[in-house]
C-alpha cells in the first residue's frame, strides 16, 4: 500500500494506540470488501450499505466512548459495530441470516444489535434512532449514572422532523447525548445542497443552542480528539453535543445504486484523502510503521475476516417453526 505523502508533525497519540486505530479501520475496510464479494456470491442478501471511506468516523468517535455508554447507529453500521468491539464472526453470520448472527439472523446487515456492548442497532428508518438515543440518555440521567448515549446518523436525516424534535428535547432536558452526524454529502442520490438550505450542521445546532463542532472525518486523530472533547463535555452534564463529521462514501449507496448523481472525478478526489491510506502514510512518515508492519496488520486483519466468514459459513439456520418467536417476550418480569 503506497502511502500518499503527508506532512507528519509528531503524533498526539502513542504508537500502540495509533496502530490500534489503523488496525480497526483496516478491519472495517477488509470486512466490507469481503461483504461486497459475498453479496455478489449471494451469501448476503437484502440491502447492504458499505461504510468504505468513512472508517475514521466510527473508529475515532467510538474511541471516545466507555463500555457503559449506549450506541445507536444506522443501516450503514458495520463499521460502528466492529469499532464497538462486536466480533466480526457474529456480524458476518448475521448478514448470512444464521442464528449464530448477533441478531440471530432476524436483522441482517441493517440491524446489527448487541446487548453486551449496548449497541442498540442498526436502525433502517432515517432519523428513527435519534429519539431513541434521547430516551437512552434520559434513562441514564434519571438513574444518575454518567453514561452517555451516542447516536450516529447521516446528514440526510437532518431534514427529518425527528431530528428537530430530538435536538430540542435533548437540549431542553440537558441530556447526555452525543449527536454524531456523518456528513458524507449525499443521501442516496441527493446532494446535501439539494436537501438543506443550511448545509453547515453547526449552524443547524445553533437553532437549538446545542453545542457543535465540525471536524475532518477523514482524519481519525482529529475525529478522536474532537469526540473525546465532546464526550467529556456531555458526560460532565453540559447537555448534548453535535459533532459534524465531514466524510465521504467511496462506494455506491447500496448494491443497487448506479451512481448517476455524482462524478467519478469527485469520488477520485476524495479517495486521495482515504482515511486509512493517509493515516498509514503518516505513521510511515513518522517511522512508527513500515511496510512489514503494515503487512503484519493486513495479515491479522485478513485472518480475522477469513475466520468471520468461516464462522458464518459454519452457522446454522434457525428452524422455521421458531418464526413467531421474539414478537413478544417469553418471560414476564
Amino acid at each position, binding site marked *: 500500500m503506497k502511502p500518499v505523502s503527508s506532512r507528519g508533525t509528531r503524533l498526539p497519540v502513542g504508537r500502540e494506540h495509533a496502530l490500534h486505530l489503523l488496525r480497526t479501520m483496516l478491519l472495517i475496510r477488509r470486512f466490507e470488501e469481503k461483504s461486497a464479494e459475498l453479496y455478489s456470491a449471494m451469501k448476503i442478501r437484502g440491502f447492504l450499505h458499505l461504510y468504505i471511506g468513512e472508517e475514521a468516523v466510527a473508529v475515532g468517535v467510538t474511541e471516545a466512548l466507555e463500555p457503559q455508554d449506549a450506541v445507536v447507529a444506522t443501516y450503514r453500521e458495520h463499521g460502528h459495530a466492529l469499532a464497538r468491539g462486536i466480533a466480526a464472526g457474529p456480524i458476518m453470520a448475521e448478514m448470512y441470516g444464521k442464528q449464530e*448472527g448477533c441478531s440471530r439472523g432476524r436483522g441482517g446487515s441493517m440491524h446489527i*444489535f448487541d446487548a453486551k456492548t449496548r449497541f442498540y442497532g442498526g436502525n433502517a428508518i432515517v432519523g*428513527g434512532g435519534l429519539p431513541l438515543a434521547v430516551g437512552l440518555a434520559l434513562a441514564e440521567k434519571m438513574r444518575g449514572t454518567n453514561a452517555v448515549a451516542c447516536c450516529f446518523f447521516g446528514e440526510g436525516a437532518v431534514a427529518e422532523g425527528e431530528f428537530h424534535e430530538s435536538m430540542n428535547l435533548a437540549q431542553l432536558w440537558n441530556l447526555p447525548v452525543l449527536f454524531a452526524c456523518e456528513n458524507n454529502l449525499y443521501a442516496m442520490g441527493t446532494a446535501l445542497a439539494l436537501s438543506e438550505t443550511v448545509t453547515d450542521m453547526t449552524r443547524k445546532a445553533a437553532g437549538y443552542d446545542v453545542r457543535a463542532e465540525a471536524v475532518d472525518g477523514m482524519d481519525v486523530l482529529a475525529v478522536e480528539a474532537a469526540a473525546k472533547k465532546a464526550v467529556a463535555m456531555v458526560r460532565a452534564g453540559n447537555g448534548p453535543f453535535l459533532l459534524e463529521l465531514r466524510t465521504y462514501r467511496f462506494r455506491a449507496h447500496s448494491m443497487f445504486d448506479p451512481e448517476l448523481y455524482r462524478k467519478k472525478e469527485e469520488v477520485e478526489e476524495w479517495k486521495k484523502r482515504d482515511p486509512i491510506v493517509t493515516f498509514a502514510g503518516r505513521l510511515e512518515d513518522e517511522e512508527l510503521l513500515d511496510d512489514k508492519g503494515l503487512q503484519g496488520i493486513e495479515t491479522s486483519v485478513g485472518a480475522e475476516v477469513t475466520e468471520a466468514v468461516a464462522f458464518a459459513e459454519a452457522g446454522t439456520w434457525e428452524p422455521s417453526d421458531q418464526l413467531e418467536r421474539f414478537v413478544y417476550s417469553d418471560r414476564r418480569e
Partner: protein
Amino acid sequence: MEVTYREAMREAIREALQKDDRVFLMGEDVGRYGGCFAVSKGLLEEFGPERIRDTPLSEAAFVGAGIGAALGGMRPIVEIMTVNFSLLALDQIVNNAATYLHMSGGQFHVPLVIRMATGGGKQLAAQHSHSLEGWYAHIPGIKIVTPATIEDARGMLATALADPDPVLIFENSTLYNRKGQLAPEAGAVDIERARVHRAGRDVSLLTYGASLFKSLDAAAALAEEGIEAEVIDLRTLRPLDDETFIGSVTRTHRAVIVDEGWRSGSISAEISARLMEKAFYELDGPVERICSAEVPMPYASHLEQAALPNVERIVSTVRNVVRTHG
C-alpha cells in the same frame, strides 16, 4: 368507595410512581396543566418535574424517547393527548417499539406503556374523535388494551407496566367522568382475558370501551322483550381472547359485535372472521357488526350521534338476528 374513571386512572398512575422508581409520566401538559383530561392533576406537585414531565409538542420525539428510556431500564408511561395525534408518532411505535425485540433477536425488549384518549361523542370533529385502537391491533409486537370499567381503569396500568413489551392503553374520553364503585383493595387486573358482564343464552354481544355500556343498556332493554343477550367486554384487542368469545357464541349461536371504530378492516371484522373460521358450524346465522359510520367525524351533534353506535341500533340489530334466525 365511589370514584370516577379519571380518579381510578390517576390512582393507578400514582401507585405506579410510588411503587417503582423506574416509572415516570411524560407527555404534553401532564404536569402544570394537569393533563388535557385532568387525569394527572396534582401529580406534578406530588412527584416533581423529574417524574411528571411536560414535553414540547413533539409526539415523535417523546414517544421515541419513551422507547429509548424503556430500553435503558426505565418504565415510562407516555401520554399522548388523543389518538389522532399519535399518528405523528406512528413511525416510532410501529417501526421501533413493535420491532426492537424481534430485530435484535430477543436481546432488547421495550417495557413501555403509552396511554391515549380515544373515541367520539364530544363534538370534537374530524381530527379529534376517532377510535383507532382496533386499527392499532393490526400491529404485531404491541399489545392493545381498552379499559372500560373503573376496575380496569384502576388495574390495567400496573399489569401493563409489568409487561416486558409495549402496551398501548386506550381510554375512551367519554368515560372519564363515569362514576362507579371501587373496592378499596382494588389493584392490578389481568390483561389477557375478555370478561362476561352479563350472561345470556340468545345472542352474544361482543364489545369493548365505551360501547360496553351501550351494549349493557341494550341488553337490559332486550331482556324486557325476553331476549337474553350475553355481553362480553373484550378488554384487550391484541392479543384477542378468542376462547372467551368463541365459547360464548358456541352457547348462544348468534353474535353481534359493537365497535366504535370505522367498519372496514376493523377489529370487529377480525372477530367476525375468527368466528367464521372457528365457530362456523355453531352459527345459526351471520355475525353482525355495529360500527361507526365510515366518515371523518362530523361536528354537528345529531350527525355525530348518527355516526356512532347507539343503544337503539344495538337493540334493533339484535332483535333481527334473534328473530330471523330463531
